[in-house]
């Protein structure tokens, strides 16, 4: 539980960071592009890691698939599962669009992924509908973990309407921090290449 809370928040925060920077600053503008890319990459990776760890957090991990086909709409956890059904693929598509050249042309998996190029191409480079839905679901995933805890009214400490907001804020801050770090570590050369005016890090 502990890790999924942190990683889901981080993923949602990274997706929101990436989208907001993109909307405000636009693509291919150094140094912002590194931040956009880092967020786009972090969102699907951290949510997958979180879900993977979540499965092993169950006391009956081999039964985890029952979570995917049995629903209880009064359970916050079911709503979260359904939210993740939408959020996770969207975050992957968003990352695929951002890394299109690497994925389909220069990267090591280019040959393998060729068949999917058509699908990603058909979505376009800046699909507003996808970005807006992704943002909406990032917010939902960010507050979901808070609702998960606040539904347990046996703990007075958790049972407060402020908790979901608190989780969203903490997710957003960790997402921003992770995006900056990731952007500096992996997309710095790109930033330098484009001769940015504002030095992005050292």
């Amino acid at each position, binding site marked *: 539980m502990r890790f999924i809370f942190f990683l889901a928040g981080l993923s949602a925060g990274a997706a929101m960071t990436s989208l907001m920077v993109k909307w405000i600053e636009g693509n291919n503008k150094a140094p912002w592009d590194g931040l956009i890319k880092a967020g786009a990459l972090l969102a699907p990776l951290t949510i997958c890691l979180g879900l993977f760890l979540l499965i092993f957090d169950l006391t*009956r991990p081999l039964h985890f698939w*029952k979570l995917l086909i*049995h629903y*209880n709409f009064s*359970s916050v956890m079911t709503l979260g599962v359904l939210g993740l059904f939408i959020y996770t693929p969207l975050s992957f598509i968003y990352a695929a669009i951002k890394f299109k050249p690497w994925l389909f042309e220069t990267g090591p998996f280019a040959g393998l992924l060729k068949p999917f190029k058509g699908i990603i191409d058909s979505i376009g480079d800046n699909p507003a509908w996808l970005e807006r839905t992704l943002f909406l679901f990032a917010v939902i995933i960010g507050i979901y973990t808070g609702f998960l805890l606040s*539904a*347990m009214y046996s703990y007075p400490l958790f049972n407060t309407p402020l908790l979901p907001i608190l989780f969203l804020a903490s997710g957003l801050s960790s997402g921003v921090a992770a995006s900056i770090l990731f952007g500096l570590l992996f997309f710095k050369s790109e930033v330098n290449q484009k001769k940015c005016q504002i030095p992005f890090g050292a």
Partner: protein
Amino acid sequence: MPKKYGMIHDDNLCIGCQACSIACRAENRVPESVYRLQVHIKGPEQLPNGTLKYTYHRQSCVQCENTPCVSVCPTKASHKDENGIVSVDVDLCVGCLYCVAACPYQARYVDPVTKAPGKCDFCKETRLGRGEEPACVTVCPTDALIFGDLNDPKSALNKVLSTKVTMRNKESLGTNPKLFIVPNRRGGIES
């Protein structure tokens, strides 16, 4: 008409002998490291005339009507049947333990074998089907436990509810428990 099973624990009659918890363990084959039912004994407290008083608390599922454990369960493994008894369908359970955390009465444990939560189910699987009362009720030497149908106005349960003062634990949470307590008549009541 479906039944609505409930129970009374009379603190004045209870002597804390744990016969009920042992009977529960034997009947439901509850593993050693966990329990479905215990009687927690508080005291002794000295009354002004010098006599001693103990208070007994039945630590077990109170069979809520508004069940936090059922509403949080993502797969409906935790469910309430038509007779109002809450139990776990082990086959559906994924082991997220959300129900264990959500229960305000700490009534659930994780079964060391199945790794799924277990709890009191009024001996639904074992004795109720045979028309017998739950094991704890049968063995209680002082008849401190009364089991019955809340929907039947003539049941022994309703008779006591109509003649004695009863209370339920943590009612402020809105769980609407079906375990009623006849509080100790002597000494002060801690509210």
